[in-house]
Protein backbone atom coordinates (compact mmCIF):
# COMPACT_ATOMS: atom_id res chain seq x y z
CA UNK A 1 0.00 0.00 0.00
CA UNK A 2 2.76 2.36 0.99
CA UNK A 3 4.60 1.53 -2.20
CA UNK A 4 1.68 2.23 -4.45
CA UNK A 5 1.12 5.61 -2.82
CA UNK A 6 4.79 6.40 -3.35
CA UNK A 7 4.50 5.33 -6.99
CA UNK A 8 1.43 7.48 -7.46
CA UNK A 9 3.17 10.49 -5.93
CA UNK A 10 6.22 9.94 -8.10
CA UNK A 11 4.10 9.62 -11.23
CA UNK A 12 2.18 12.78 -10.33
CA UNK A 13 5.47 14.56 -9.79
CA UNK A 14 6.79 13.50 -13.21
CA UNK A 15 3.60 14.49 -15.00
CA UNK A 16 3.58 17.80 -13.17
CA UNK A 17 7.20 18.64 -13.97
CA UNK A 18 6.93 17.58 -17.62
CA UNK A 19 3.75 19.63 -18.07
CA UNK A 20 5.63 22.57 -16.68
CA UNK A 21 8.06 22.44 -19.60
CA UNK A 22 7.72 24.49 -22.73
CA UNK A 23 5.24 22.61 -24.96
CA UNK A 24 7.05 23.01 -28.30
CA UNK A 25 10.41 21.60 -27.27
CA UNK A 26 10.79 19.68 -30.56
CA UNK A 27 9.80 22.77 -32.53
CA UNK A 28 12.42 24.77 -30.67
CA UNK A 29 15.16 22.23 -31.37
CA UNK A 30 14.22 21.97 -35.05
CA UNK A 31 14.09 25.77 -35.29
CA UNK A 32 17.59 25.97 -33.81
CA UNK A 33 18.89 23.38 -36.28
CA UNK A 34 17.17 24.49 -39.48
CA UNK A 35 15.96 28.08 -39.19
CA UNK A 36 18.00 29.98 -36.63
CA UNK A 37 21.13 30.60 -38.74
CA UNK A 38 19.16 33.01 -40.92
CA UNK A 39 16.06 34.02 -38.93
CA UNK A 40 18.11 34.37 -35.70
CA UNK A 41 17.49 33.00 -32.20
CA UNK A 42 15.16 35.92 -31.45
CA UNK A 43 13.30 35.69 -34.78
CA UNK A 44 14.52 39.13 -35.80
CA UNK A 45 15.90 38.24 -39.27
CA UNK A 46 18.52 40.51 -40.83
CA UNK A 47 17.62 44.02 -42.01
CA UNK A 48 16.22 43.96 -45.57
CA UNK A 49 18.02 40.69 -46.36
CA UNK A 50 16.20 38.12 -44.24
CA UNK A 51 12.62 38.72 -43.05
CA UNK A 52 11.79 38.50 -39.34
CA UNK A 53 9.47 35.90 -37.85
CA UNK A 54 8.91 37.84 -34.64
CA UNK A 55 5.93 40.11 -35.18
CA UNK A 56 5.78 39.26 -38.90
CA UNK A 57 2.43 40.10 -40.52
CA UNK A 58 3.21 37.48 -43.19
CA UNK A 59 2.51 34.69 -40.68
CA UNK A 60 -1.08 35.71 -40.02
CA UNK A 61 -1.76 36.83 -43.62
CA UNK A 62 -0.28 33.79 -45.37
CA UNK A 63 -0.49 31.09 -42.71
CA UNK A 64 -1.55 28.43 -45.23
CA UNK A 65 1.61 29.01 -47.32
CA UNK A 66 4.06 28.51 -44.45
CA UNK A 67 4.28 24.66 -44.42
CA UNK A 68 5.20 24.53 -48.13
CA UNK A 69 7.77 27.31 -47.63
CA UNK A 70 9.40 25.35 -44.80
CA UNK A 71 9.45 22.17 -46.87
CA UNK A 72 10.42 23.51 -50.31
CA UNK A 73 11.88 26.94 -49.70
CA UNK A 74 10.89 30.10 -51.54
CA UNK A 75 12.30 32.32 -54.26
CA UNK A 76 11.50 35.81 -55.48
CA UNK A 77 10.08 38.88 -53.80
CA UNK A 78 7.97 38.79 -50.66
CA UNK A 79 6.74 41.62 -48.47
CA UNK A 80 6.88 41.36 -44.69
CA UNK A 81 5.80 44.27 -42.49
CA UNK A 82 6.00 46.60 -45.49
CA UNK A 83 9.58 45.67 -46.44
CA UNK A 84 10.26 43.80 -49.69
CA UNK A 85 12.72 40.91 -49.39
CA UNK A 86 14.34 38.98 -52.23
CA UNK A 87 16.68 36.40 -50.75
CA UNK A 88 16.21 32.78 -51.75
CA UNK A 89 15.36 30.48 -48.86
CA UNK A 90 16.27 26.78 -49.03
CA UNK A 91 13.61 24.31 -47.93
CA UNK A 92 14.12 21.40 -45.55
CA UNK A 93 12.57 18.51 -47.44
CA UNK A 94 13.32 15.91 -44.83
CA UNK A 95 10.91 17.42 -42.27
CA UNK A 96 7.73 15.44 -41.60
CA UNK A 97 4.35 17.12 -41.29
CA UNK A 98 4.53 16.65 -37.50
CA UNK A 99 7.90 18.33 -37.35
CA UNK A 100 6.68 21.19 -39.54
CA UNK A 101 3.65 21.56 -37.25
CA UNK A 102 5.90 21.78 -34.19
CA UNK A 103 8.15 24.37 -35.83
CA UNK A 104 5.15 26.51 -36.79
CA UNK A 105 3.73 26.30 -33.27
CA UNK A 106 7.10 27.25 -31.80
CA UNK A 107 7.19 30.29 -34.10
CA UNK A 108 3.54 31.12 -33.35
CA UNK A 109 4.19 31.23 -29.60
CA UNK A 110 7.68 32.75 -29.39
CA UNK A 111 9.21 36.24 -29.19
CA UNK A 112 5.89 37.88 -28.36
CA UNK A 113 4.04 36.17 -31.22
CA UNK A 114 0.53 35.19 -30.18
CA UNK A 115 -0.85 33.31 -33.18
CA UNK A 116 -3.26 30.37 -33.08
CA UNK A 117 -1.90 26.87 -32.58
CA UNK A 118 -2.10 24.80 -35.78
CA UNK A 119 -2.85 21.09 -35.81
CA UNK A 120 -1.03 18.56 -37.92
CA UNK A 121 -4.16 17.63 -39.93
CA UNK A 122 -4.44 21.28 -40.93
CA UNK A 123 -0.75 21.29 -41.87
CA UNK A 124 -1.32 18.11 -43.92
CA UNK A 125 -3.99 20.02 -45.91
CA UNK A 126 -1.71 22.99 -46.38
CA UNK A 127 1.08 20.74 -47.63
CA UNK A 128 -1.11 19.34 -50.44
CA UNK A 129 -0.12 21.98 -53.02
CA UNK A 130 3.50 20.87 -52.65
CA UNK A 131 2.66 17.21 -52.35
CA UNK A 132 5.52 15.90 -54.43
CA UNK A 133 7.56 15.58 -51.25
CA UNK A 134 4.94 14.24 -48.89
CA UNK A 135 6.41 12.33 -46.00
CA UNK A 136 3.69 11.87 -43.39
CA UNK A 137 5.77 10.17 -40.69
Amino acid sequence: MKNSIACLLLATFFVWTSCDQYPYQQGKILYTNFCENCHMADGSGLKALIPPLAGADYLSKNGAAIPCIIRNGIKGEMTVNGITYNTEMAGVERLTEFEITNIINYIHTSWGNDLPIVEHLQVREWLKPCEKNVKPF
Partner: protein
Amino acid sequence: MKYLFIWLVVFSVLVGCQSSLSPDVLPMLGSPQIDQNGDSVAHTIPDFSFVDQDSNLVTNETFAGKAYVADFFFIACPTICPKTAKQMLRIHDYFKDDARLELLGHTLAPKYDTVAALNRYARNLGVSSKKWHFVTGDQATIYKMAPEYMNVALEDSDAPGGINHSGYLILVDKNRHIRSFCNGTDPEDVDRFIKDIEKLLNEK
Protein backbone atom coordinates in the same frame (compact mmCIF):
# COMPACT_ATOMS: atom_id res chain seq x y z
CA MET B 1 72.03 36.83 0.73
CA LYS B 2 70.91 33.32 -0.21
CA TYR B 3 67.31 34.58 -0.46
CA LEU B 4 68.25 37.37 -2.84
CA PHE B 5 68.04 35.07 -5.85
CA ILE B 6 64.57 33.83 -4.82
CA TRP B 7 63.33 37.38 -4.25
CA LEU B 8 64.71 38.36 -7.62
CA VAL B 9 62.76 35.53 -9.26
CA VAL B 10 59.56 36.47 -7.41
CA PHE B 11 60.06 40.11 -8.35
CA SER B 12 60.61 39.39 -12.03
CA VAL B 13 57.59 37.06 -12.16
CA LEU B 14 55.43 39.78 -10.60
CA VAL B 15 56.72 42.44 -12.95
CA GLY B 16 56.42 40.09 -15.90
CA CYS B 17 52.85 39.15 -15.08
CA GLN B 18 51.89 42.73 -14.52
CA SER B 19 52.92 43.85 -17.96
CA SER B 20 51.21 40.96 -19.73
CA LEU B 21 48.03 41.41 -17.70
CA SER B 22 47.99 45.14 -18.17
CA PRO B 23 44.32 45.90 -18.83
CA ASP B 24 44.83 48.85 -21.15
CA VAL B 25 47.04 47.40 -23.88
CA LEU B 26 45.89 44.70 -26.26
CA PRO B 27 48.45 42.04 -27.24
CA MET B 28 49.97 41.65 -30.71
CA LEU B 29 48.52 38.41 -32.10
CA GLY B 30 49.74 35.99 -34.73
CA SER B 31 53.20 34.57 -35.43
CA PRO B 32 55.99 37.16 -35.23
CA GLN B 33 57.91 37.75 -38.45
CA ILE B 34 61.59 38.62 -39.05
CA ASP B 35 62.17 41.86 -40.96
CA GLN B 36 65.16 42.76 -43.24
CA ASN B 37 67.20 43.90 -40.24
CA GLY B 38 66.76 40.55 -38.56
CA ASP B 39 64.42 42.02 -35.95
CA SER B 40 61.32 40.23 -34.79
CA VAL B 41 58.11 42.10 -35.58
CA ALA B 42 54.50 41.21 -34.84
CA HIS B 43 52.51 39.51 -37.60
CA THR B 44 51.67 42.15 -40.21
CA ILE B 45 48.81 42.11 -42.74
CA PRO B 46 50.49 42.06 -46.19
CA ASP B 47 49.65 44.42 -49.07
CA PHE B 48 46.29 43.85 -50.69
CA SER B 49 44.14 45.39 -53.38
CA PHE B 50 40.44 44.60 -53.82
CA VAL B 51 37.32 46.30 -55.18
CA ASP B 52 34.33 47.17 -52.98
CA GLN B 53 30.55 47.42 -53.51
CA ASP B 54 30.87 50.88 -55.05
CA SER B 55 33.78 49.84 -57.33
CA ASN B 56 36.24 51.71 -55.10
CA LEU B 57 39.74 50.30 -54.94
CA VAL B 58 40.36 49.10 -51.38
CA THR B 59 43.98 48.70 -50.26
CA ASN B 60 45.94 49.02 -47.04
CA GLU B 61 45.98 52.77 -47.76
CA THR B 62 42.17 52.85 -47.41
CA PHE B 63 42.73 52.16 -43.71
CA ALA B 64 45.74 54.46 -43.23
CA GLY B 65 45.72 55.79 -39.68
CA LYS B 66 42.63 53.72 -38.86
CA ALA B 67 41.75 50.43 -37.23
CA TYR B 68 39.46 47.98 -39.00
CA VAL B 69 37.51 44.81 -38.36
CA ALA B 70 37.91 42.15 -41.06
CA ASP B 71 35.89 39.03 -41.80
CA PHE B 72 35.20 36.51 -44.57
CA PHE B 73 31.74 35.61 -45.84
CA PHE B 74 29.67 35.03 -48.97
CA ILE B 75 26.15 36.17 -49.75
CA ALA B 76 24.57 32.74 -50.34
CA CYS B 77 26.23 31.23 -47.26
CA PRO B 78 23.51 29.21 -45.52
CA THR B 79 25.29 28.62 -42.22
CA ILE B 80 27.16 31.12 -40.06
CA CYS B 81 27.20 34.21 -42.30
CA PRO B 82 23.83 35.78 -41.44
CA LYS B 83 24.65 35.52 -37.72
CA THR B 84 28.12 36.93 -38.30
CA ALA B 85 26.65 39.73 -40.43
CA LYS B 86 24.26 40.56 -37.59
CA GLN B 87 27.19 40.90 -35.20
CA MET B 88 29.26 42.93 -37.70
CA LEU B 89 26.21 45.18 -37.99
CA ARG B 90 26.21 45.62 -34.20
CA ILE B 91 29.86 46.70 -34.36
CA HIS B 92 29.04 48.97 -37.33
CA ASP B 93 26.19 50.64 -35.44
CA TYR B 94 28.21 50.97 -32.23
CA PHE B 95 31.09 52.78 -33.97
CA LYS B 96 28.95 54.45 -36.64
CA ASP B 97 30.12 57.96 -35.86
CA ASP B 98 33.70 57.05 -34.95
CA ALA B 99 35.85 57.65 -38.05
CA ARG B 100 38.77 55.79 -36.43
CA LEU B 101 37.19 52.40 -37.23
CA GLU B 102 36.04 50.83 -40.51
CA LEU B 103 34.85 47.35 -41.51
CA LEU B 104 36.11 45.05 -44.26
CA GLY B 105 34.17 41.99 -45.44
CA HIS B 106 35.85 39.70 -48.00
CA THR B 107 33.60 37.55 -50.17
CA LEU B 108 34.74 33.96 -50.54
CA ALA B 109 32.53 33.47 -53.62
CA PRO B 110 33.71 36.24 -56.00
CA LYS B 111 32.24 34.35 -58.96
CA TYR B 112 28.72 35.10 -57.64
CA ASP B 113 29.37 38.04 -55.31
CA THR B 114 30.12 40.61 -57.99
CA VAL B 115 30.31 44.34 -57.34
CA ALA B 116 26.61 44.61 -58.27
CA ALA B 117 25.63 41.75 -55.93
CA LEU B 118 27.68 43.20 -53.08
CA ASN B 119 26.15 46.61 -53.73
CA ARG B 120 22.64 45.19 -53.35
CA TYR B 121 23.70 43.26 -50.24
CA ALA B 122 25.15 46.38 -48.60
CA ARG B 123 22.06 48.42 -49.50
CA ASN B 124 19.80 45.79 -47.95
CA LEU B 125 21.93 45.88 -44.81
CA GLY B 126 21.59 49.66 -44.87
CA VAL B 127 25.33 50.38 -44.78
CA SER B 128 27.67 52.56 -46.83
CA SER B 129 31.08 51.83 -48.35
CA LYS B 130 32.40 54.86 -46.45
CA LYS B 131 32.28 52.71 -43.32
CA TRP B 132 31.89 49.09 -44.36
CA HIS B 133 33.62 47.75 -47.46
CA PHE B 134 32.44 44.49 -49.01
CA VAL B 135 35.27 43.48 -51.30
CA THR B 136 35.67 41.09 -54.17
CA GLY B 137 38.64 40.22 -56.36
CA ASP B 138 40.69 37.31 -57.59
CA GLN B 139 39.51 34.22 -55.73
CA ALA B 140 42.96 32.74 -55.06
CA THR B 141 44.19 36.11 -53.74
CA ILE B 142 41.23 36.41 -51.36
CA TYR B 143 41.69 32.84 -50.11
CA LYS B 144 45.38 33.57 -49.46
CA MET B 145 44.40 36.55 -47.31
CA ALA B 146 42.19 34.46 -44.98
CA PRO B 147 45.06 32.84 -43.00
CA GLU B 148 46.73 36.27 -42.73
CA TYR B 149 43.63 37.22 -40.70
CA MET B 150 43.76 33.91 -38.77
CA ASN B 151 40.71 32.62 -40.70
CA VAL B 152 40.24 29.36 -42.58
CA ALA B 153 38.77 29.35 -46.10
CA LEU B 154 38.60 26.24 -48.26
CA GLU B 155 36.42 25.19 -51.15
CA ASP B 156 34.69 22.01 -50.03
CA SER B 157 31.82 20.43 -51.94
CA ASP B 158 30.68 18.65 -48.77
CA ALA B 159 30.26 21.89 -46.83
CA PRO B 160 26.89 23.67 -46.92
CA GLY B 161 27.17 26.30 -49.67
CA GLY B 162 30.38 24.67 -50.96
CA ILE B 163 32.84 26.66 -48.85
CA ASN B 164 34.31 25.67 -45.52
CA HIS B 165 35.27 28.75 -43.55
CA SER B 166 35.55 30.18 -40.05
CA GLY B 167 33.58 33.15 -38.80
CA TYR B 168 36.20 34.99 -36.79
CA LEU B 169 36.12 38.78 -36.68
CA ILE B 170 39.63 40.23 -36.62
CA LEU B 171 40.68 43.61 -35.24
CA VAL B 172 43.62 45.18 -37.12
CA ASP B 173 45.36 48.29 -35.82
CA LYS B 174 46.70 51.22 -37.85
CA ASN B 175 50.11 49.49 -38.07
CA ARG B 176 48.52 46.42 -39.72
CA HIS B 177 48.91 44.25 -36.60
CA ILE B 178 46.17 41.94 -35.30
CA ARG B 179 45.14 43.02 -31.81
CA SER B 180 42.00 41.04 -30.98
CA PHE B 181 39.53 38.57 -32.44
CA CYS B 182 36.18 37.00 -31.60
CA ASN B 183 33.76 34.34 -32.74
CA GLY B 184 31.37 36.27 -34.98
CA THR B 185 28.43 33.99 -34.19
CA ASP B 186 28.61 34.49 -30.40
CA PRO B 187 27.02 37.76 -29.22
CA GLU B 188 28.72 37.58 -25.80
CA ASP B 189 32.15 37.17 -27.34
CA VAL B 190 31.35 40.15 -29.55
CA ASP B 191 30.48 42.21 -26.42
CA ARG B 192 34.04 41.58 -25.21
CA PHE B 193 35.40 42.33 -28.69
CA ILE B 194 33.64 45.73 -28.77
CA LYS B 195 35.36 46.58 -25.46
CA ASP B 196 38.69 45.56 -27.03
CA ILE B 197 38.03 47.85 -30.00
CA GLU B 198 37.39 50.76 -27.61
CA LYS B 199 40.60 49.89 -25.79
CA LEU B 200 42.54 49.96 -29.06
CA LEU B 201 41.02 53.26 -30.15
CA ASN B 202 42.00 54.79 -26.81
CA GLU B 203 45.61 53.63 -27.13
CA LYS B 204 48.10 56.42 -27.48
